[in-house]
C-alpha cells in the first residue's frame, strides 16, 4: 500500500466517523419535505411590510356588497358595532377614560386587517372569502373609517402603503418583552407597620354576587353537618355558636328574612320563634309538620294571616331552621 493510498484510507475513515456522529446528533430521519404547493396553501400570513400578500384586487364598492351580506349583522351597518366589536369610530379615544378599540382607532397596519379577515372571518365561516373578496372587504372597512375614499381599490401593492391613524401608537419600550426586561412598577419588602391607614376602596354592591353569579358558597367544598358535630372536642354549645357569635339557626332566620314576620320571642305578623318552640317541642310529628308548613305555608294555627310557602329557602336550611326551633331557639 502506497503512502498516498494510506492517506486516502485515513481521510475516508475520518469522514465516515464524522458523518456518523453528525447523523446521530442531527438527522432523526423524521418528517418529510414540504412541497411548494403545500406551503402556498397553508402559509397565508401577511406582515406589515406586505410580505405574504397574495396577488389580487378589490374595490370599496365590491366590499360594501360583501360587508352588508356577511359582516354587518355582527359589526353594524356602518361598522359601529352590534353583537360583536365596532370596526369604526373612536379615533382619539385611546387616552380617554372610555377607549374604543376599533380598526380606525387602534390598529396600526392595514396588512393585519387583511390577514385576519382572510384567515378568520366571517366568524361562522372562516377562510370562505376569496383573495379578491378579502381585498374588497378590507377596502370597505377602511372606507368606513374614512381612511380610504369611496372609489378606492386595494391590491398587494397599495394595501401596505395605507397609513392607519394609530400607526405610531405602539411601543416596545417596556420590560415585558424579555425575561431579563426591567420592571416598571416597584414594591418594597416592608414587614412591620407598612401602611398608616388601610381603607377599602372598592367592593361589590350588596346582592350583586347572588344576582349575577348565584350562590357562590356552593363553589366551595363542605362536607360535615356542623362544626365538630358528634366529633371529639365539639361541645353542644360550641357547635351551636358560629363565628359571629350567633347560632346557625338565628343566622339562617335572619338570612332568609324570617325575622321580618317572626320575632325571636315576640309576635310580629306571625308567632315568635320561641312561641312555636314552646307549643311543638316534644311532639312526635313536630318535625314533619313544621317542614310541611314551611313548604306549603298557610294560616289557621296562629291567626288568619297566611305565611307564604318558603320554597325559596333551600331544603337543608329549612331542616336546620326546624331543628333550631325545636331546640328552643338558642341565640
Amino acid at each position, binding site marked *: 500500500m502506497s503512502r498516498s493510498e494510506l492517506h486516502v484510507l485515513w481521510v475516508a475513515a475520518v469522514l465516515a466517523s464524522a458523518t456518523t456522529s453528525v447523523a446521530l446528533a442531527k438527522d432523526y430521519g*423524521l418528517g418529510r419535505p414540504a412541497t411548494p404547493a403545500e406551503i402556498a396553501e397553508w402559509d397565508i400570513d401577511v406582515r406589515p411590510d406586505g410580505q405574504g400578500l397574495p396577488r389580487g384586487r378589490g374595490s370599496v364598492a365590491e366590499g360594501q356588497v360583501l360587508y352588508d351580506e356577511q359582516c354587518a349583522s355582527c359589526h353594524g351597518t356602518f361598522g359601529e358595532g352590534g353583537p360583536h366589536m365596532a370596526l369604526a369610530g373612536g379615533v382619539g379615544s385611546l387616552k380617554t377614560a372610555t377607549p374604543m378599540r376599533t380598526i380606525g382607532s387602534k390598529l396600526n397596519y392595514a396588512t393585519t386587517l387583511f390577514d385576519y379577515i382572510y384567515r378568520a372571518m366571517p366568524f361562522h365561516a372562516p377562510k370562505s372569502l376569496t383573495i379578491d373578496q378579502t381585498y374588497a372587504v378590507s377596502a370597505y372597512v377602511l372606507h368606513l373609517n374614512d381612511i380610504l375614499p369611496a372609489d378606492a381599490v386595494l391590491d398587494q401593492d397599495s394595501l401596505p402603503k395605507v397609513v392607519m391613524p394609530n400607526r405610531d401608537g405602539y411601543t416596545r419600550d417596556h420590560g415585558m418583552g424579555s425575561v431579563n426586561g426591567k420592571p416598571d412598577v416597584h414594591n418594597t419588602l416592608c414587614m412591620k407597620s407598612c401602611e398608616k391607614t388601610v381603607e377599602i376602596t372598592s367592593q361589590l354592591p350588596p346582592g350583586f354576587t347572588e344576582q349575577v353569579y348565584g350562590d357562590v358558597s356552593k363553589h366551595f367544598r363542605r362536607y360535615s353537618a356542623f362544626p365538630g358535630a358528634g366529633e371529639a372536642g365539639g361541645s353542644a354549645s360550641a357547635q351551636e355558636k358560629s363565628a359571629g357569635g350567633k347560632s346557625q339557626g338565628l343566622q339562617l332566620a335572619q338570612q332568609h328574612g324570617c325575622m321580618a314576620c317572626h320575632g325571636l320571642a315576640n309576635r310580629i305578623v306571625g308567632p315568635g320563634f320561641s312561641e312555636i318552640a314552646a307549643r311543638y317541642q316534644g311532639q312526635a310529628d313536630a318535625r314533619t309538620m313544621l317542614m310541611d308548613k314551611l313548604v306549603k305555608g298557610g294560616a289557621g294555627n296562629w291567626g288568619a294571616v297566611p305565611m307564604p310557602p318558603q320554597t325559596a329557602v333551600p331544603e337543608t336550611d329549612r331542616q336546620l331552621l326546624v331543628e333550631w326551633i325545636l331546640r328552643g331557639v338558642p341565640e
Partner: protein
Amino acid sequence: MKDKQPKPGRIIPVPENFLSPADISRRRALKALLAGSAAAVSGAAFSGDESGGKLGVPPWSKSLGKPVGANPYGLPSEFERHVIRRESPGLTTSPHSSVVFTPLQNLFGIITPNGLHFERDHGGRPDIDPSQHRLMINGLVRQPKIYTMDDLLRFPSVSRIHFIECGANTAMEWANVSVPTVQYTHGMLSCAEWTGVMLSTLLDDCGFDRKRAKYILAEGADAPSLTRTVPIEMALDDVMVAYGQNGEMLRPENGYPLRLLVPGVQGVSSVKWLRRIEVGDQPWNTREESLHYSDLMPDGMSRQYTWIQECKSVITSPSGGQKLLDKGYYQITGLAWSGRGRIKRVDVSTDGGRNWRTAELQDPILPKALTRFRIDWHWNGEPALLQSRAVDETGYVQPKMRQLREVRGTRSIYHNNAIQTWKVDPSGDVHNVQV
C-alpha cells in the same frame, strides 16, 4: 408564627348544600332503603349528625362496592360535582370566543387536573383527528418540512412543569372589584406537566437560518387559525411543541393533539392545535398582538409584545365567597408564580398590608411554575384583610394595586399582577375587596 395553640376550625360545613334536589332525594331514598334493610342488623341507619352520639356503620361498609374497572377512565367522585370550570356571566359576547375559569379555590398542590385547566378559545374548540394532523415548519429554513403526529412522538422528548396564565387574567379588576371569587379573579391560570419536543430540536431538524432568524410565527389549526409571534431567543430557550399534559395526551380544550408551550409568557402565545411554525426576521403584528393583547397606557400608547407574565400570587383559601363558621385555626394557602423564573419568597398579611409574615413554600419550587405557599393563622373573629405578596428570584416584588395604577392606569386590560385582598367579616363571610 406558631405561638398560639391551634383550635379546631371549619369552613362552612353543611352536608347537602352542594347537592341538587335530585341528589338529595336520591340520597334520601338510598338512606331509607338501607335503613329498612340495615336496621334489622344494626338497629341504626348511618347518619353521623342525627344519631344520638353514635357514629353508626355506613352503608358502604356493609355492602360490596362496584367491580374493579367499573370506570375504564376514572372520574371524580359524584360528591365533587361542584368542582368545575365556570364562565363569568356577561364577560364575552360569543360562547365560541370565550373563557372558562379554573376553580382555584378547590385545588391542592400545584398541578391543575386536566379537566379543570382553564380554556380560552378564539373561534370554538376543534375536534382534531390526530391521524390527519400535520405540523409544517417553513420560512427561513434550509428544508421546509411536514411532520405527522407519529413523527413528533418519535423525537427526543422532555417533560416540564409550567404554568399557563392568560395575559388578561385579573383584567376585570383594574378599575374596581367586579367579580366575587378567586375562580373569576385569577382562574385564567393553570399548571401542568407538559411533554413534547423542544422547538429548538425541530428548528434544527429543518436547518433554520441562525443568522437571519429573529422571530417565529406559531399558527393554530382552529377556525381563526390564531397566530402569534415569538422571539427566536425564547423559541430556542425553553419553548416546547407539546402533546402530553399530566401524563396523557393534551385535552381537546388545551390543543389536542399538539400545542406550542411558551413558558412564563402570556397564554395566547402557547398556540393550541398547532399546525405551522414559520421562521422570519420581523414580527408579524398579528391581530392578537396588535388590536388585542397589547396593553393600553394612560397616554394612549399601547405596549406591544408584552410577553412576560410578571411575578404574582393569590391566596386561594380562605378566599372570596367562602365562609368561616368558627373562630380558631386556619391554614392560609395560595399560589405564587413568575414568568421570570422561580419564586423566592411569599409574605402574607392579615391586616391589609400593615404587617407581614413570611409563608412556607412547598417543594418543588420550579421556574415558571406555580408554587404553593402556606401559613398558619388563628382567626380571633375580628375583621381581617388577607393579602399575599410574592418575590421572584430576580428580586422583583409583587406590586400593590395602587402602585400598578399609578404607572399603567386602569384601561390596559392585560397583566394585572397586583396584590389581591380578601376581607373576612366577623360573620365569617369572605369578600373580594381592594384597599
